[in-house]
């Protein structure tokens, strides 16, 4: 029942993307160089997340144990 952890952790990646988006808002005069780098990273994350969103299947595994104990 150990599910293989996915290559990216959706929650973590999403959080990082949110942080980057917030960074864009918090910078009054954002540095163009850093902005471009952040933007690039943001796009990369969004791409990976979208890829994960395309996953449609869920696995349902019935547990063998009996619970009447």
């Amino acid at each position, binding site marked *: 029942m150990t599910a293989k952890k996915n290559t990216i952790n959706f929650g973590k990646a999403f959080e990082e993307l949110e942080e980057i*988006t917030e960074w864009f808002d918090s910078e009054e005069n954002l540095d163009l160089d850093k902005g471009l780098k952040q933007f690039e990273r943001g796009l990369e994350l969004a791409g990976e997340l979208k890829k994960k969103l395309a996953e449609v299947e869920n696995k349902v595994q019935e547990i063998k144990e009996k619970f009447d104990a």
Partner: protein
Amino acid sequence: MDSNVYSVSGYLDLVNDTLQMIPSSEVVIEGEVSDFRIAQQKWISFDLKDEKEQAVLKCFMTVWQLKVEVADGMRVQVKGQPKIYERFGTFKMNVQELSPVGEGALRQAYELLKKKLQGEGLFDASRKRSLERFPERIGLITSRDAAAFGDFVRILNNRWGGLVVHHAHVHVQGRQAVQEITGAFGYFNTLPEEERPDVLVLTRGGGGLEDLHAFNDESVARAIYASQIPVVVGVGHERDESLADFVADVRASTPSNAAERVVPSRTDVLYELQTMTRHMEERLQDRVNGYGQVIEKVTHLVSFVLERQKERFRSGYERLLVSSHDWLPQIRTDLENLGRVLRQVDPQRVLARGYSIVTTGGVVVKDAGSLDVGQEITVQFAAGSAEAEIKRKNGHGQQKLV
């Protein structure tokens, strides 16, 4: 054959006629209300039960006949007419009068337990944990045969993918239900940390207080309370609250709603992703535009200055062209005139007329007084020149030897 042969409806008529013989106005039935429902705000149905014996009387009445507030678990007395409904073949009591008899024992027990658990802080909002927004593993505790199971999985699939659902099959009602449910909670919570689900879901369809007994059981409530993994409880309809609902970290109204509470929807998240990337892009674009505007301003200024210089040069050149048009021929005439004058005063031409020019030491002699006797002079003719010596000037000097 002596027996009468009846059609089904004919027979049911006979039975109903026989039932009519019960002196209904004198018969009072006492029991506990369960599975109380109002359909279309008009039709009321409920079960009347005995506390100890397993006996159920299906009751039917209209809202207009009901004079008091009735809830599941209430102990009531009813009067009415029993009847078999031909269409469904069901036996029902058409209730004409209903009066409460104190609080139903079940309800009473329920309320007492509820109060006790509340006092212990099992329902406190402050201990409710929030769920992981993007769970990867879900522990599902329900019966594989229940509609709740299908509903939950179906909505889950509609909304989100890539999940692993660990399903603990348990009875959600009946004698084994409590033990199995608490057993499942124990199982999930004793898994090694890395194998534990992100959230546990305990769900079933709705039902009367009787059906929900496991969800109102003290040990189930305590198992939910003790769970280290956040718990979502979703029971059929909201109208049947259960103690499990109150203890749960998140209370869902139905099994489908439980799925909605557990995972986000793809479309929502996709929209959020798009909004975020667009926002970043806009912010960056703003910044680039900011730089661009400065650059544009500077280039505009520079080209403006350049243009003005060019313009000045061009107009100067043009003015030159235009005016030279006027004065060039003039100059030409002037030059020609000058040439004529110059030609007239050309000493050569004067000499040609017979004049001579006298110079001494390269200087033209205009006054005889400036000459000395004996001084050498040069006489320039129209053709050729001659050297001479001054013998006399203005009547003075060496006498003419005549």
